[in-house]
């Protein structure tokens, strides 16, 4: 009786989220997988079939894969490099009474839609933006939009807060007495940072990197606007395949591939993190 009641409670607790995921994630994924083995209908869309052609065809979108698989990790790395000093300042150096306000300031840009913020960059980097200023100091013909640089800039800008927050949390909860202990044992500021602060804040870096990496892998607005079709991501390929050329089966095959690559990457990454057992322990405490 008690056991049945407990099962009832479990169902109530897990049920809504499980149903949500099942209906809106698992089921659509199954549909996508099924589509990926089908054929394009005469007027686009999907015709049932069983063929591997779509997958064999993926090489034709190789550049999109290459771009995504190079730019997403690079963007994540840059994000971490920019975010860490900021998070460190917020958690360690900033006066306590300013801290909350500074954290809020970091989120403020997120109150505007991503599309708007990226459009703003388009104006800043466009010919009437920074390049026109550079012309004043004699630097002619600097092109910023429609370059990899612009896409990277947009990516770092867009996802920086997602990196700052986990690192901030891990630095903030770092026991300050560990730093004193390190100094007491003869380590100066830099060695203490390298030997104590950095290793103990790596879980935050790992969490932030995972978050940013996953989102960057699926990114399509930033490359579309700031890359101007020159820097093509898988996300852009998907938009193109589903909405423009209406080749749903091929689009499905590309989608399945990117999901598979992402899962594999995350699996390897988690494996690596679990290997660093002590860090995981720290992250949990």
């Amino acid at each position: 009786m008690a056991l049945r009641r407990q099962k009832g409670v479990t169902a109530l607790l897990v049920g809504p989220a499980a149903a949500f995921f099942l209906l809106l994630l698992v089921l659509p994924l199954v549909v996508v997988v099924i589509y990926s083995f089908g054929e394009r209908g005469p007027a686009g869309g999907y015709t049932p079939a069983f063929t591997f052609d779509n997958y064999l065809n993926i090489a034709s979108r190789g550049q999109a894969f290459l771009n995504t698989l190079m730019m997403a990790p690079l963007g994540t790395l840059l994000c971490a490099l920019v975010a860490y000093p900021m998070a460190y300042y917020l958690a360690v150096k900033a006066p306590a009474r300013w801290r909350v306000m500074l954290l809020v300031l970091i989120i403020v840009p997120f109150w505007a839609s991503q599309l708007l913020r990226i459009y703003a960059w388009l104006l800043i980097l466009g010919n009437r933006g920074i390049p026109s200023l550079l012309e004043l100091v004699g630097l002619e013909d600097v092109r910023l939009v429609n370059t990899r640089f612009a896409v990277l800039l947009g990516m770092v800008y867009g996802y920086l807060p997602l990196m700052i927050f986990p690192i901030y949390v891990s630095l903030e909860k770092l026991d300050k007495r560990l730093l004193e202990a390190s100094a007491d044992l003869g380590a100066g500021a830099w060695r203490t940072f390298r030997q104590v602060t950095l290793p103990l804040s790596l879980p935050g870096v790992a969490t932030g990197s995972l978050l940013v990496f996953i989102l960057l892998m699926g990114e399509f607005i930033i490359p579309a606007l700031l890359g101007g079709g020159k820097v093509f991501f898988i996300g852009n390929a998907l938009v193109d395949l589903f909405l423009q050329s209406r080749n749903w089966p091929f689009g499905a095959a590309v989608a399945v591939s990117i999901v598979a690559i992402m899962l594999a990457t995350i699996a390897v990454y988690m494996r690596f993190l679990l290997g660093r057992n002590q860090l995981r322990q720290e992250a949990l405490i």
Partner: protein
Amino acid sequence: MAEDAARKPIVVFRGVSKFFGEVAAASDISLEVAAGEFLSFLGPSGCGKTTALRMIAGFEQPSEGDVFLDGVRVNDIPAYRRPVNMVFQSYALFPHLNVWRNVAYGLLQRSPRPSRADIDRSVARVLDLVQLNGFETRRTWEMSGGQQQRVALARALINEPKVLLLDEPLAALDRKLRREMQIELQNLQRRVGITFILVTHDQEEALSMSDRVCIMRQGRIVQIGKPTDLYDRPASRYVADFVGKSNFFPGTVGEVAADSAQVTVASGVSLPVNRFGENMQLAKGDSVVLAVRPEQILLTRSAESLPQDSVVRVESRVLNRIFLGEHTEYLLSSEGLGEFAALAPRQSELVESPFETGEIVTAGFRAEAAQALAAD
């Protein structure tokens, strides 16, 4: 050791004050700690004892005055360059490093870095000292509180500091383990011969381990001395109350002689007192308090069995009996002395059965048991 005047002081505070904003955490502290001494800072929280310790470690800089370590003024020397090491309150072991790396940490910071073989030897030696051989690859969080404490000790001792600072090192341990570690710490200190400076709020801990105890209150040193001196000759009512328990009986000074004074307590009994608080100038008619330790008060059912020289004898009613294991504490009330406490050792039960609540007994103490202190 403390009385060994030939020893040079290893730590010297000269007029040291520390302000945090408007708050004075330490005021005008002057103190010399002899090399090889075991000194404790004792006081309630917020008395400045931890601030004093942190100024030796280099985590705080004095606002006024100078701190000397081994003859060198260290006010401007950062913590990582000072020849002292600290055992932190909750140990502050590095959670991402195993026991070996924690212990070797200090040696690994040296330049030039000692050879791996030398480090291995040193780690083995200090782990041996704290009886933790074989724990090298353990994670510190897997260890018990007592073991973590030993790792913290080993991590500090491996650097052979001139002074080992201990910030409430035993506070996190349970009572029994704390007792054991107290004895172990004391033995360890004698073996390594390093100066130990301990901070604690536990008077029993301070009295049982230290050569000298420095009692602090509101940022100031109230009294420094050997544990027995502090206990038997407290300089003030504060110390008498803080170190051990004490009864305080109000009294009036009568005739004053060269080294004793006649004090009349409220019961009308007059007794010659020859122990006084620090810097006390007594004059006839002054109000004082007589401090009498509970264990100095003898209780009996038959007044004639009190020692002949018990100058104070009062009929008292037993208000409460608290069994403490080795002792029984009685709370009593008498017309002359008001409420007071007396401690009876279990041996007294061989002569008389324990007293019951409500019983009338005679309480007595000798003149030497009383010490006159400022009434404040």
